[in-house]
């Protein structure tokens, strides 16, 4: 329970930064469990190929492998929650240190709101810290339901794959096989969406924390405008998630068609494409986080050197 509490609360300003987060070690252990599931499935695949196990086993190894991936993604999400907590501790540390480090700039001048150029792109200059952008506010809410629903769908698909392993009727097999793939890959897409929303939550924390530090020092608040990479991240994430839902609907149709092989031949790449697009969005989110961190270091240096 203590570990779970670490995930959702902003730590108090006087929280001890030397304390290690248990969530990091929990996440690594969960990740190892996922890795083990996929490795076990590989062994069974080899046994099937060499004729030492029946081809039926491929049905459950598919389910087990996807469940292993889901476990690893869950572990990644847990680590990201740890990063959110650590970023707040960093904000509190900057707030505590900067008043004593910044140059004395004399009386403060009036701030006129507007845009400025920085080495990291256009930024806004405001008197008060700007609020969160709508996607960031949404990200703070949405990562939790996605993180809950994703593993549930993957687990449901795993159960379907186990039932399918013992099924004899070809129609039942076709239906169960289609629903297994559709359900599990929607679950995977939701887990990647949860990771994307957590990255959005990190960006929200950077924006809010950066504004909070500058405002607490009585300085003009400089905030980076939403970079193009963040906009592209949102577009890719929405597209990937929509494809994830679409492939479930299409697998639902493929479960009962007369020529399942034709449907499965293009639905397989489609479901992989949906995950690929979500992963591409994650790349851009990470790039944006790197850019915002660069901007923050630049701004901290500026405050130390000029006091403004």
């Amino acid at each position, binding site marked *: 329970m203590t570990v779970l509490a670490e995930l959702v609360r902003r730590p108090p300003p006087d929280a001890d930064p030397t304390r290690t987060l248990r969530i*990091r070690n929990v996440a690594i252990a969960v990740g190892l469990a996922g890795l083990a599931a996929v490795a076990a499935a590989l062994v069974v695949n080899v046994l099937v190929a060499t004729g030492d196990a029946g081809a039926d086993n491929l049905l459950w190894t598919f389910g087990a492998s996807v469940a292993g*991936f889901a476990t690893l993604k869950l572990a990644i999400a847990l680590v990201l929650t740890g990063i959110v907590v650590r970023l707040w501790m960093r904000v509190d540390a900057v707030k505590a240190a900067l008043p004593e480090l910044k140059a004395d700039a004399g009386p403060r001048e009036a701030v006129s709101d507007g845009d400025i150029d920085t080495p990291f792109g256009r930024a806004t200059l405001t008197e008060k810290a700007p609020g969160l952008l709508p996607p960031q506010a949404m990200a703070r809410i949405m990562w939790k339901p996605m993180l809950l629903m994703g593993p549930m769908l993957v687990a449901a698909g795993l159960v379907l794959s186990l039932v399918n392993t013992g099924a004899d009727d070809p129609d039942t097999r076709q239906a169960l096989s289609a629903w297994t793939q559709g359900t599990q890959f929607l679950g995977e897409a939701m887990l990647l969406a949860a990771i994307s929303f957590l990255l959005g939550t990190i960006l929200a924390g950077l924006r809010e924390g950066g504004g909070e530090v500058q405002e607490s020092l009585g300085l003009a608040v400089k905030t980076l405008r939403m970079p193009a990479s963040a906009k592209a991240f949102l577009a890719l994430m929405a597209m990937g998630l929509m494809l994830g839902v679409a492939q479930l609907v299409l697998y639902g149709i493929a479960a009962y068609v007369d020529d399942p092989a034709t449907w499965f031949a293009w639905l397989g790449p489609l479901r992989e494409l949906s995950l*690929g697009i979500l992963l591409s969005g994650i790349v851009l989110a990470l790039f944006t986080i790197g850019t915002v*961190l660069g901007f923050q*270091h630049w701004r901290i240096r500026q405050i130390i050197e000029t006091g403004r």
Partner: protein
Amino acid sequence: MAAATVRAQFRVETSSRSLGYNLPQRLGRALWLPMLLMALMLFGAGMALGIVRASEIADGSAADTIATLQHVQAGLMFLGFASVFSAISFAIARILGQLRAGGGEVQEAAGRTVQTLRMPGTAKLFLVLMMMAMATLVVASILHFVFAADIDPTPASLADAEDRFVVLEGVRRLGIAVYLFAILLGLATIIRVLRFQAVRLRELPREEPVR
């Protein structure tokens, strides 16, 4: 000139200036975008080939053509996954670089001794596992192409192609799992670096300026 120092809870290098980016971080800054673009192209090509294969099945084409397309399609798609996971790993390295270089510059601006965290064990493991996973996926994809070129319209060859696909499927999945675990370790390293930054920032006001 940087010197290695052991301080409470962290192994650091001390210097008078920011140490900037290390080699993996410089690579990360340069390579994340080419990898992302390559991934997007490969995903598109894999999807297109999936549609071609579906149409061949619907038209009742030869079994060897369908098996060949299955191998080539999987090879392209998983080269795409290798690329996108590389892009993610490079983007994480870029974040670690921003924290390393930026953290050093802040200490330098404050006129204090610059302490830079030495590469943690999780970061070293991240690099090793990332390279292993990439090699696994690339080799599996190349084998898909090799096996695709080796398919004849005989029952024995088609059965071999199917068995090889089953094994490579498992290998590809393991490659992805190792990649995900490497990414997990990369992110865990960010937690450690942020912890060091929070501790170090609180120390700065208590230290005497060196300049």
